[in-house]
């Protein structure tokens, strides 16, 4: 099952460049939204955040891995999307090149979602990302779009073979 990805950013310029890089990859949508608005997108099953950001849901510091954790109702009974995908942790000796980090993050997220969906009826079909949790603000947004497209297509091509 191919997951649909939604990537959001507040800047129109960044959104345009991401869309250029992702041209032809219809399963990945780029929206001009604030990150808190992303969490309210209809049908969003999960959202991505760093390991430290997902501490409250029990994320563990495991480099080069993404973890899928169930969210809980907050004090006011509101709920975020049902799952949080926590990842984006690197060893100190790893390259700090944002392109390398983006590839690793996207690969680990897609792998984690695949494994999760095999074992769960409550499949994750739509995942939201804010550009700043992916480090896209530190790189050319068109290149970031191309990397996401390349990782996405390579992942599902390999998955189907």
């Amino acid at each position, binding site marked *: 099952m191919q997951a649909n990805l939604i990537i959001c950013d507040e800047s129109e310029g960044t959104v345009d460049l991401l869309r250029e890089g992702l041209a032809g990859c219809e399963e990945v949508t780029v929206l001009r939204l*604030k*990150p*808190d608005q992303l*969490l309210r997108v209809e049908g969003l099953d999960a959202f991505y*955040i*760093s*390991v*430290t*950001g997902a*501490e*409250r849901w*029990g994320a*563990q*510091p495991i*480099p080069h891995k993404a973890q899928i954790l169930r969210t809980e109702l*907050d004090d006011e009974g509101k709920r975020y999307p049902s799952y949080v995908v926590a990842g*984006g*942790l*690197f*060893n*100190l000796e*790893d390259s*700090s090149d*944002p392109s390398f*980090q983006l590839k690793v*993050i996207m690969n680990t997220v897609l792998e984690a979602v695949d494994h999760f969906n095999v074992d769960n009826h409550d499949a994750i079909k739509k995942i939201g990302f*804010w550009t*700043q*949790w*992916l*480090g896209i*603000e*530190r790189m050319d947004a068109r290149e970031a779009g191309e990397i996401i497209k390349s990782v996405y297509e390579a992942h599902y091509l390999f998955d189907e073979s």
Partner: protein
Amino acid sequence: MRFRLGATSSGPGTKGFWGSAEEAATFSQKMFKTFPGEGPYTITSTEVSNSFMRSAQYANEPGIGQTIYVRPPPGPVKVFNFSPNANLKFKF
């Protein structure tokens, strides 16, 4: 001294700290934008012994800095009013 964001700390388990208040502030800005209704995002710090730090796990979080993950420290925790450095500027 290590710094972390107080509002993200709930329950037992490993806690992430940063080596500087500036890195903790960068993280707080991202958290504030993602979960604006969940503040206040105070920054806390703690001092622990070198022996305690030997059990810590060091990692790099893109765009923020070096993160140090430890079990909840046993020592006293100092809570700052958002930033210990009055010269830090925040843009939201």
